[in-house]
């Protein structure tokens, strides 16, 4: 170029002073130098800082929430489902700069006049404030359509419990952030929750995603889990229990229905209950799943287990006669008493009339160790581990501590405690021809093989004896199921406190199995502190058992094994046109 200028000059172009050219060149050089230096600074020296700043403005890591798995019953009916909802959040300072949007927002979000402004002003220096959580998507879109500055939506999942209070205690619930708090939601939180994913995106000024920068981690959805519950039976059990608890003005109650062969828990209902869909219902009073977390003394319901042990050891035979006259006897400071003295009777009568004296005599004849090991074989003192959290294992002291009195009281079910599931499991062993099943609440878990509690022969003999409870003048006639033979046992347990036993507070219990010949279902009904005069287990819990089992055998289409129904009904009482 300089050559060409020289050439121009040589061609006679107007002469320019050399210093002027130099000045211009120098100015240009300095300018170029500055530009280069700046470019160098930006591109090389400050590069990392600036890249970071730029990414900070455009690049976003978006968490992709994982879908929480559903909880279903054994036939796939949903018990807990997650549905997407929108949570609105706001940057208060930005929204306050545009006050013209506040009235419309207040109206859509049901804030009182001025309330929204106060709410925002109080949180002015925050950068993330939830405005409303868990709005249904349609409502959230109406709010977003206002395009108010600083208002954003975030996708979250809300948990719905279609079965409501019917399965509330078993299923439990999650907190607002989707973590399991109670019941199976808490016990199975990890597999249900899955794993949230993340993806890096580039956003433009209006917040739209324009580019994905590749480093994404997909969300792993939680697994769907099936419980062993049968929602149909669960509903019936809950309905009948609620009616009974209300009718007897009782403090509470529980029902457990078990598949005798597999140990699957088909229904487990509690009163008082709560609706897990309503967070305000979640006070501590109704949350307890009494079947698992509460202990009670089995009382008379333990007698069949004692009789099973007596038969197993060969000390008694089903037709052995026990003299219970005159209806009471003394061991040291203890007087064992029968409410209705029965005289000299066989084992079937001891059970069907629920004689404490008879049971105590059998227990004392066997001795503490034999009684203890009999109960122990039926799983007393051993947790059920059904998969439900918070199980109480019960009090079952070693037999070395048992004197005469303790042995006698243990024979009719006092001085030791169990939870309802342990008691049902023990009866399931009788129902299952002597094999003690392991109870399950979660389907698909590997079943632990059952253990033998008593021989097949003894289990069948005891079932035969227990059938007398629900016929004739047995204590449990009201638990009978028409068309079926029922083996069961009533229990009227006095509640105790630190000082001793209450005279007027009882737990009315009935445990039974149906059909008695080849049991498929074992059920326990317990009504806590009935306060309407009636308190005998047969009167209070028996009818509930009967009604639940009538529906259950119909639902499961179990073949009747009893005498054909003779109860009238020439024409079916169906709907008429």
């Amino acid at each position, binding site marked *: 170029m300089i050559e060409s200028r020289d050439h121009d000059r040589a061609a006679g172009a107007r002469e320019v002073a050399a210093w002027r050219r130099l000045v211009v060149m120098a100015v240009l050089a300095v300018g170029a130098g500055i530009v280069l230096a700046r470019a160098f600074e930006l591109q090389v020296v400050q590069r990392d800082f600036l890249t970071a700043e730029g990414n900070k403005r455009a690049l976003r890591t978006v968490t992709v929430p994982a879908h929480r798995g559903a909880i279903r019953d054994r036939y796939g009916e*949903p018990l807990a489902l997650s549905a997407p909802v929108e949570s609105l959040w706001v940057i208060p300072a930005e929204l306050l700069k545009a006050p013209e949007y506040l009235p419309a927002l207040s109206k859509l979000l049901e804030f009182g006049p001025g309330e929204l402004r106060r709410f925002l002003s109080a949180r002015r220096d925050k950068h993330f404030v939830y405005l409303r959580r868990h709005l249904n998507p349609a409502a959230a879109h109406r709010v977003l359509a206002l395009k108010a500055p600083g208002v954003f939506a975030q996708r979250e999942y809300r948990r719905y419990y*279609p079965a409501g209070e019917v399965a509330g205690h078993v299923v439990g619930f999650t907190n607002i952030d989707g973590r399991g708090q109670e019941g199976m939601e808490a016990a199975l939180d990890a597999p249900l929750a899955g794993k949230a994913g993340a993806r890096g995106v580039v956003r433009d000024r209006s917040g739209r995603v*324009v580019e994905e920068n590749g480093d994404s981690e997909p969300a792993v959805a939680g697994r769907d889990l099936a419980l062993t519950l049968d929602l149909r039976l669960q509903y019936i059990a809950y309905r009948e229990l609620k009616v009974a608890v209300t009718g007897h003005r009782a403090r509470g109650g529980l029902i457990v229905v078990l598949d005798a062969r597999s140990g699957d828990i088909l229904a487990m209902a509690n009163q008082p209950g709560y609706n897990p869909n309503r967070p305000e219902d979640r006070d501590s009073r109704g949350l307890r799943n009494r079947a698992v977390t509460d202990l009670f003394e089995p009382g008379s319901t333990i007698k069949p287990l004692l009789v099973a042990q007596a038969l197993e050891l060969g000390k008694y035979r089903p037709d052995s006669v026990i003299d219970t006259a005159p209806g009471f006897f003394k061991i040291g400071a203890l007087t064992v008493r029968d409410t209705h003295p029965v005289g000299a009777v066989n084992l079937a009568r001891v059970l069907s009339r629920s004689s404490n004296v008879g049971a105590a005599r059998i227990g004392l004849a066997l001795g503490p160790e034999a009684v203890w090991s009999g109960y122990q074989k039926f799983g007393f003192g051993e947790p059920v581990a059904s998969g439900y959290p918070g199980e109480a294992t019960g009090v079952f002291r070693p037999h070395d501590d048992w004197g005469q009195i303790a042995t006698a009281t243990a024979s009719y079910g006092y001085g030791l405690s169990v939870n309802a599931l342990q008691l049902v499991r023990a009866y399931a062993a009788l129902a299952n021809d002597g094999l003690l099943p392991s109870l399950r609440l979660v389907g698909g878990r590997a079943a632990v093989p059952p253990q033998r509690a008593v021989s097949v022969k003894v289990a069948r003999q005891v079932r035969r004896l227990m059938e007398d409870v629900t016929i004739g003048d047995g204590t449990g006639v009201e638990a009978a199921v028409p068309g079926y033979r029922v083996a069961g046992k009533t229990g009227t347990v006095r509640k105790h406190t630190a000082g001793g036993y209450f005279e007027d507070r009882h737990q009315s219990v009935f445990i039974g199995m149906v059909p008695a010949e080849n049991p498929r279902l074992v059920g326990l009904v317990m009504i806590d502190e009935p306060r309407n005069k009636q308190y005998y287990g047969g009167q209070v819990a028996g009818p509930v058992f009967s009604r639940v089992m009538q529906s259950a055998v119909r639902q499961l289409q179990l073949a009747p094994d009893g005498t054909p129904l003779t109860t009238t009904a020439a024409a079916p009482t169906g709907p008429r046109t």
Partner: protein
Amino acid sequence: MVALVISVVGSALVVVKTKHENRTLVHELEQLRAENARLETEWAQLQLEEATLAHHGRVEQIAREKLRMTEPRDTRIVRAQP
């Protein structure tokens, strides 16, 4: 030299085109994700609706009160002989 300039300009244009295609596809992906989310919402809501309508309490109430149905409690159960 000329070939170099042309190829540089050409490749620059291709970069622009690719970038544009990329953005279009990302946009499409976003839309499909939104669609997926919408369908997921709808699916969850339909499941909930079904569960609510099929709730045993509701079915029982309708069966008893509206359709006047009862359990076949008093009918005679006949066992088929094998």
